[in-house]
């Protein structure tokens, strides 16, 4: 475990040196600007719009961060062969993969923290406050989603071996992970038959990202508070456990495949 942590910290430093952060900082500022622009369009509902579009930005930046991390690392491994320097040392391959997960998650946390700081500053400038426990909880669960997606992207980077394939498979999974829950209901309503079976298979195989979306289910303050609702601990603990177990399954598969791979 300690080796995986050390690898993770070093991967985090390596990613920082690759100037990924510059690209992501520009993206974060763009998202901050977009939430100001849309909030301005929303006139008297500016606070609500700033918060909702801000959370959307947090989700996207988390995913794009982990995707970029693994894509850059995959490129370096396959084109520059940097991995051989590490694997001649007494480090198991699964430890290296775990290190990649740790490093990319740390960078995602750093970026999300940066975007949240931008959103809080924007709120302060525009005269509303986003700083509330439900908002930070929603951000935390989106970050947890990024960790799960990091494991998924890692699996695809092992399976695909090329950068475009990894990007396509991962992004497809990211979008389907949002859709499947509602698709199942929609198909059931339409009496979908074979399509319903297919959607159900996808639903159980792909990560169910809807469970991490507290933005749509928590009373986030402002004018949209449903009074008398206090969410129980189970609303928070089950998604955490789900994310951990799903990521473990994916990491197991990725490690097994990586072990068989010729480098």
């Amino acid at each position, binding site marked *: 475990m300690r080796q995986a942590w050390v690898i993770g910290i070093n991967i985090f430093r390596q990613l920082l040196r690759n100037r990924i952060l510059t690209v992501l900082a520009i993206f974060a500022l763009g998202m901050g600007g977009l939430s100001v622009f*849309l909030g301005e*369009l*929303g*006139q*008297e*509902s500016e606070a*609500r*719009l700033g918060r*909702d*579009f801000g959370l*959307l930005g947090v989700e996207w930046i988390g995913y794009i961060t982990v995707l970029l991390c693994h894509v850059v690392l995959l490129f370096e491994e396959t084109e520059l062969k940097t991995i051989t320097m590490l694997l001649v040392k007494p480090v*198991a*391959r*699964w430890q290296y993969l775990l290190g990649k997960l740790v490093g990319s998650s740390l960078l995602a946390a750093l970026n999300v923290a940066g975007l949240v700081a931008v959103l809080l500053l924007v709120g302060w400038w525009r005269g509303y406050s986003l700083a509330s426990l439900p908002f930070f909880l929603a951000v935390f669960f989106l970050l947890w989603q990024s960790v799960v997606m990091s494991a998924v992207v890692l699996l695809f980077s092992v399976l695909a071996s090329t950068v475009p394939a990894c990007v396509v498979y991962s992004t497809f999974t990211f*979008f389907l992970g*949002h*859709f499947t*829950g*509602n*698709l199942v*209901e*929609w198909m059931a*309503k339409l009496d979908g038959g074979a399509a319903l079976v297919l959607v159900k298979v996808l639903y*159980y*195989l792909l990560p*169910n*990202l*809807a*469970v991490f*979306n507290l*933005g*749509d*289910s*928590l*009373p986030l303050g402002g*004018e*949209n508070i*449903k*009074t*008398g*609702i206090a*969410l*129980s601990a*189970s*609303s928070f603990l*089950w*998604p955490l*456990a*789900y994310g951990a*177990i*799903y990521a*473990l*399954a994916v990491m*197991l*598969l990725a*490690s*097994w495949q990586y*072990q068989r791979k010729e480098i």
Partner: protein
Amino acid sequence: MERMPFRHLLMAVALLLLLAAALAGIARQARRDQAELPLAFLTPAPAKLSAFGFAGALAGMRRVAADWAYIEMLQYYGTGRNRLDNSFQGVIPLADEIFWLDPHFRFGILYTAAIMGFNEGHLAEAISLLQRAARTDPSYPRYRLYLAGLTYRKAHDDPRALQILELMVEEPDRPEILVRTLGNLYIKNKQWPKVRAYWMRVVMTDKDPRTLWEARLALAQAAQHGN
């Protein structure tokens, strides 16, 4: 890891995925019992639904999609030539979309009902929207207040409608458009002393540029009518 045979690994992964699916089911159920928003497609979708609204509902981004529909409604209502479209008729499907996407978007629902009912004369649609909203969110008293105002308006009982509107504009987070609506109703009813007193108070207390601009016009109009 290197010694694990493939079928053992497959069994382990399958078991973990099954466990994860069970956990996701429990997580969804726990959330469903307490969620602010019901899951999409549990309630019938409106007849007219934008592509963004549909995609937002499917992707579990209903608040964002409702915000987008609300911006679209503001843009539509802010474009003067849409008045030719039977007094901004296009607001009605957008109001239904906002309500379907996020039935707890209180400000958006009140704002839309106010412009449909008080400003554009789509009273039946505004009352229907507020009735649905009050059924979904019965703990919020303002829906009933707005309903009362619109019902009096529909019955052509203007004095009572004005009384209710006077209560509505006293609410701290009322839509700004109500302030202008009430002042314009005083002008329409030629209650010039009330026009002067009301708009003077608005000038002293309000900060909205458009409301202040209308206040100056109203005061100039009142001055022309002497005392």
